[in-house]
């Protein structure tokens, strides 16, 4: 879910654009079943919303609540990463 939110933090995207973006930024290849499972959950939580679309490729965007949730998660991950890197640095020096 975090990968989808991170992808949408760069602007609205439709399914295929999200899969390509996530593959580039995290080297994770999401399938359509996984992506739409996450999108349905995020939509239920009110963290993403669909935009109107003229063709079948419907874009999604991050909501304000989604942006807040993503920020909290990324800060937590960053804090854990910082601690881990500090400890690695101490162990290696």
């Amino acid at each position, binding site marked *: 879910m975090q990968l989808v939110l991170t992808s949408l933090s760069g602007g609205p995207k*439709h399914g*295929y654009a999200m*899969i390509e973006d996530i593959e580039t930024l995290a080297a994770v290849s999401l399938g359509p*079943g*996984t*992506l739409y*499972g996450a999108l349905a959950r995020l*939509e239920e939580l009110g963290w993403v919303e669909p935009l109107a679309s003229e063709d079948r*490729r419907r874009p999604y965007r991050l909501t304000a609540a989604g942006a807040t949730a993503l920020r909290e998660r990324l800060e937590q991950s960053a804090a854990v990463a910082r601690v881990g890197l500090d400890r690695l640095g101490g162990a290696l020096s």
Partner: protein
Amino acid sequence: VSRRRFSPSVVLFCYPDWWRARYAHEVDALVEDLVAGGRARWRVALSLALGALRVRLFATGAPDSAAVWRARTSAWIALGTLPWLAVIPLYGYFGNRSGDYETFVGGRVGGLSGAGRLATDAWGLMAWVLLGGVILLGSSWLRLLLAVLRDRTAGRFRRMVFVAWPGLTLLAGLAALLLGDATSRPGLATTVHRVGSHLFAATDPVAPARVWLSVGVIIILVGWFTTPWAVLRGLRRSSLSLSVLQMGSRTSLALSISSTVMLAAAALWQLAARLQPVPLKGWSYLEAGLGPHPNLYLAGLAGVAALSWAGTRVARGSYRRAFLLARV
């Protein structure tokens, strides 16, 4: 020569109706893009199939509609109850072995040890639970049939035929068996040929009685194996009342418990029968184990119990949600 390749989008039919109404068109476009981008079709199809399983299990994103949750409840009740149909052939093939001593003519009969008595009790328990399950399944099916009959929504007759399918095929099969029995005459199906001084007996392969008996068995088997599909087709688009769904989820729970009891009894029977001391040579002996493949029998019962519990668990949760939504 052009060859039509399968589209992974066919897997979208595994998703519930509400999900397809909301997402199918955009996922279909995504599948086209992924395949055009070089993604293997089988990987896309597998991802969709696993996604369908997750949506069926957890109903993520399902709307707060009593009709959607009622339909979900009835589908999961079917999963909780229909695997029980496999218990009867499983028991018939593997489990229907006497727990008593096999007797040798003129041999002495040894007494049962505590383990032997436990084995025969476990075998008896299996048979009683099976009988109870069959009665419960039959009575619940009759109530379901009446509920579909009372459901006034469109396509009632078609749905009723699907739900009635197991009973109709059983009746047709029994009628063919009775007809076969009634038309059979001793010796009618056997022709004796005389060649020289030798007599040869040949059974007429197309004797009417034989045909009717075969037709009866085939109808019953086809009816039995197609029952899950037919009942699920009958339940599709049915609008069953909450009281019927409550009865169904209770039946599902009872059958889950009974399949677990049967599994425990079968395991106990097998274990206890092996602990019964082997009598002296020439004595009668307690049959050990559950026929030629006891592990297959236990694995089959474990599979039925696991499916049944999964169906019961989701059905009860869905029923509670449908009940709450109906009250709002």
